[in-house]
């Protein structure tokens, strides 16, 4: 179960829009043969990452709010998120990726990093977990579907892709729930309840001309994420009703130089492994590590 929390986010970032091209709108049909599964896999891979043997990176700035099932949203913090996927095309027409991800925390909508966070609703000072996850195995299969492996409970559902002018939209929706490994009886402050819920939606917007160009293996894209998620354990919300509501915006980046400076500095300081994905082989799971850390403190 610990694996779930690890695989979820990375898989969503890397495996979006399973099968979406099969349902592409008529505007894209003239340019893209959307009924060719091989084409669909290649197009998906080049938007999500790359059809070449190379690393593709995505940077997102995620503003996270609290929704208490009543009232309006309340700002919590900003999460800088760096996702690196090492892609490799396969002989059978599929595309495999190793997914690595890290996150660092900032005062809401600023570049002011936080080491500790005061929960505005409980008044308690909390320490964020060490957000370094991966590697996750991800495959875009020849027919365009996605496989995230047995350890992943991610269930991305395809939504149709379509184009508008020279814009091409690739989207996915994922909604799932699972027994919470943080039992309320053992973790009254960290556990949000017996079941964890995670709804997450990704959207990639790319240029249709790039997508249709066979010479372009790694298509630039704007990326948007939104989610509605059971309270993370480190927030210390206990069994208060509600979820976090996230809004992330960013892009695929050509190099680390494109990561905003303040965010890059914080990644180097707090999640250095994200810069060593070539030698990062042991599985890291932020949730499990956070729980182990709390247990050790006890």
């Amino acid at each position, binding site marked *: 179960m610990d694996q779930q929390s690890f695989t979820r986010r990375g898989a969503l970032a890397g495996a979006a829009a399973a099968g979406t091209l099969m349902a592409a*709108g*008529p*505007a894209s049909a003239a340019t893209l043969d959307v009924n060719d599964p091989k084409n669909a896999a290649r197009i998906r891979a080049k938007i999500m990452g790359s059809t070449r043997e190379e690393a593709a990176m995505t*940077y997102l*700035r995620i*503003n996270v*709010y609290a*929704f208490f*099932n009543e*009232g*309006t*949203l309340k700002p919590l913090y900003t999460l800088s998120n760096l996702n690196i996927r090492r892609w490799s095309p396969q002989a059978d027409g599929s595309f495999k990726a190793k997914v690595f991800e890290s996150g660092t925390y900032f005062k809401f*909508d*600023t*570049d002011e990093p936080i080491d500790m966070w005061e929960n505005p609703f409980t008044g308690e000072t909390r320490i964020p977990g060490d957000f370094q996850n991966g590697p996750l195995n991800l495959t875009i299969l020849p027919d365009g579907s996605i496989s995230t492996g047995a350890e992943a409970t991610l269930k991305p559902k395809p*939504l*149709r892709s*379509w184009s*508008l*002018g020279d*814009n091409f*939209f690739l*989207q996915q*929706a994922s*909604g*799932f*729930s699972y027994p919470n490994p943080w039992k309320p009886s053992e973790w009254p402050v960290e556990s949000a309840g017996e079941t964890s*819920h995670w*709804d997450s*939606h990704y*959207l990639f*917007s790319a240029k249709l001309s790039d997508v249709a160009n066979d010479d372009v293996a790694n298509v*630039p894209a*704007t990326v*948007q994420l*939104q989610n*509605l998620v059971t309270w993370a354990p480190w927030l210390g919300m206990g069994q208060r*009703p509600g979820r976090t*509501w996230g*809004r992330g*915006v*960013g*892009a695929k*980046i*050509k190099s680390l130089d*494109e*990561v*905003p400076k303040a965010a890059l500095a914080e990644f180097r300081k707090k999640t250095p492994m994200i810069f060593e994905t070539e030698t990062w082989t042991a599985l890291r799971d932020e949730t499990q590590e956070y729980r182990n850390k709390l247990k050790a403190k006890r």
Partner: protein
Amino acid sequence: MTTTTISRRGLIATAAMTAAAGAISPASAQKIGDLDLADPKTRAMVRAKVQGSIAEETVYSFYRLHLYGYVNEGNLVPLTTMNNLNITKWKPLPGGNYAGTVFESGSYCKFDTDEPIEVWENPFTGEKRDVWPFIGGPLKVELGPDGGVTDETATVKPKAQRIDIIGDTIFVVSQSAFSFPNPLKPEEWPKESAGPTYFWDSHFVHAAKVADVVNPKLTRAGAFSQFQNLVSWHPWFGMGGKPGRTYGKAYGTKLKSLDELPKAARATLEKQTPEIFDVDNWTKPRLDFPEYMAWRKAKKS
């Protein structure tokens, strides 16, 4: 109150980054090429160019909005998809701000399709409900260095968030959270009312290429536009008395002209909201909630 209902969505769509006067974002210290965001006129120009236009011209934006139901437990449940067309007539003002007159409509379709629906089956209650297409405008908006300035009738309170630059893309972002007394009182509208108070959280982002923003020859930058929201149940869903909200995600772009509007989407808009294709003759304000209430009452009688 009625004006607020009509103005809400359009305001956020076109005039985000509002208020926050004095709350200059960190991005105000940034430079984009030769453009200095610390200069208020430059900042206003950048916002207008990304969100709309800095010239006297009409800007069309099309979104597909997927609506899900969140009933305060479990996972999201798909409800319906709205094809949303926003038409804004922009013009520069003498002081360096930009004015917009906004018209907007939305046609409802079966989820993630262009199949228009006139009757919708509520997945939570099983009830079949008559669809109420969305129509709103004209609304006046003034866009300045730190967002839109709206008239006093609007209860929307968008807050400026910083302008972000990632790689070669500039992001203009806003958030709005507000609540107001629901004109549909629960005792009178038990099926339609979401409660005595109506809540509306809505967040917008417009993303454009830096090269387009700094290009003096362009009056508007092509933009990827997205909004997401969390809103009390609209009356037509018939979720009265049920906890929860709609969870919306929408994405689209500015259009070069209406010719770019996807054919199937245009057909749904022509069918459900033909007014949106005749904005030159649309002068009377359209008020969503009051019109819905009047329509339901007439239907019941």
